[in-house]
């Protein structure tokens, strides 16, 4: 993360209290106590369940009956389960299909719309609006948009049954996802571009580089850190998908993503142990993917 710019601007003497070992003052104890409310909530409602997930994944647990130890059976079941495999594939499809185009589009729009002119402000607003909508409410709207006689088909003179076919339902969700998420990353890329020193940009202009070269040689490399963050966020958001799938298809037609699978397994089939096992696997997968992404971006950092 590039904090150098910030540091040069900051008033000297501000920042964080040093962590060097020294006598702990009474004042520091009071200060420590201030973090207790947050930390206690954290400990109870985040850390404890976080650890418990691993524990529960080794049991067959339906909440009213006492948990039954089954060792790695849940994991064995999931390894062979076509439904789980399909859920992971559905999540991957949704994540890649939505966020790759969304990021690319957001980047392109950010470069195009970075000027501070008034008119462009309005255009940017149009892209931001979907971000301010709530997932469930906007899914209800998109249900209508994706209706065989709805906005999408009518505008492009198509006759596709978006939500009642395995070949198109997942694309329908991707289309809605791109619409909703592009603005979010546009904000991030704009913030990143705004922090780029203007001198570098000017220098490239003077050098006579054309816009394309300017982008690739100058802008994009400087955007690496933000792109890294964006892609990590994108993957996490992609796997968090739940509301659109529930409202648009209920998980039918190959749109049952992992979150929905967990919900159904835990709460409709009352198999909480197995659902915990899924959670453990998802946790591992996401950590791995995040680390890979950060490594990839770091290695290509000049």
């Amino acid at each position, binding site marked *: 993360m590039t904090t150098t710019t910030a540091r040069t601007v900051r008033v000297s003497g501000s920042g964080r209290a040093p962590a060097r070992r020294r006598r702990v003052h009474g*004042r520091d104890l009071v200060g420590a106590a*201030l973090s207790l409310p947050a930390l206690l*909530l954290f400990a109870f409602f985040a850390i404890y369940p976080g650890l418990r*997930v691993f524990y529960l994944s080794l049991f067959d647990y339906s*909440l009213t009956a006492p948990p039954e130890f089954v060792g790695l059976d849940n994991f064995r079941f999931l390894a062979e389960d076509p439904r789980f495999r399909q859920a992971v594939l559905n999540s991957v499809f949704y994540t890649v299909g939505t966020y790759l185009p969304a990021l690319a589009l957001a980047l392109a729009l950010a470069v195009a719309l970075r000027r501070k002119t008034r008119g462009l402000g309005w255009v940017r607003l149009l892209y931001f609006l979907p971000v301010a*909508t709530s997932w469930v409410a906007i899914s209800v709207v998109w249900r209508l948009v994706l209706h065989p006689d709805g906005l999408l088909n009518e505008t492009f003179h198509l006759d596709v049954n978006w939500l009642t076919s395995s070949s198109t339902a997942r694309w329908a969700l991707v289309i809605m996802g791109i619409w909703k998420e592009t603005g979010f990353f546009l904000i991030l890329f704009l913030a990143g571009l705004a922090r780029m020193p203007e001198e570098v940009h000017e220098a490239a202009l003077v050098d006579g580089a054309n816009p394309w070269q300017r982008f690739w040689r100058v802008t994009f490399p400087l955007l690496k850190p933000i792109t890294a963050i964006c892609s990590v966020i994108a993957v996490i958001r992609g796997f968090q998908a739940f509301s659109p799938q529930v409202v648009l298809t209920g998980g039918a037609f190959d749109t049952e993503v992992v979150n929905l699978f967990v919900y159904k397994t835990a709460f409709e089939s009352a198999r909480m142990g197995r659902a915990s096992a899924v959670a453990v696997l998802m946790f591992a997968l996401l950590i791995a993917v995040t680390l890979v992404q950060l490594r990839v971006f770091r290695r290509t950092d000049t």
Partner: protein
Amino acid sequence: MKRLLVWALATAGGLAFAAVLAYAVLSALKPGGEVLAVPLRWWPSRFEWHNFALPFEQTPFARYYANSVFVGVTVTLLNLVTCTLAGYSFSKFSYPGRNVAFVVVLATLMVPLEVIYVPLYALIYDLGWVNSFAGLIIPAGTSAFGIFLMRQAIDSVPDELLEAARLDGAGVLRTLLTIVGPLVRGPMAALALFIFLMNWDSHLWPLLVASDDDHRTLPVGLAAMQANNLGASGIPMMMAAAVLALVPTVALFLSLQKRFVEGVAMSAGLR
């Protein structure tokens, strides 16, 4: 010239994006049979303002709305308190374990909350908080994102000011209230906006924890209403309900756009 072309394209795209929202509002105002009439006509033949009363007449929509507002405001206030206190603590004080605690908090940002929902639900159940506001509010009372944000924000408060206050005899809390607080009002507003938005949108957790009509929040209620009104006759009511549900966050966004954009940028650690 090329720039104008690019801007024109971007504007066209933007209008296409906004078209969906326009479609929603106009559909909500159309008489039932017109919404899916082929070919598509944008403008309603007459404005059925009464459609906006339908959700309130036919479902406990008012209850869902009130619950979402109540839970949203309470969670936002709780977060403001806990995250500001924690951010202040991590930023301006030094004590053993501080850095470890902060790293642990940060680490949870990597992991989507859904991963812990099953044991979290079991915990809420054991506490007897199922179908209660406590189950909706207390687990959401703080957030790693908020703590991170507030620490960043308080980092930039000059130490000299705090030193001066200490010499003046001001206690820890007094310093927070009179010196630090006013200086981080901006980030606090952004945090409040962001927390409210995230909570307004929260679907899976409330679905698990509070699905009886008395405690249902808007996303859960709306999804249930949709599931019960998949036919053409339910469309005016559903569109009206969806538009009504969209209003608070879109309105908040429009009026506090700068703060909102700040909040999103901050959520990625950018400022």
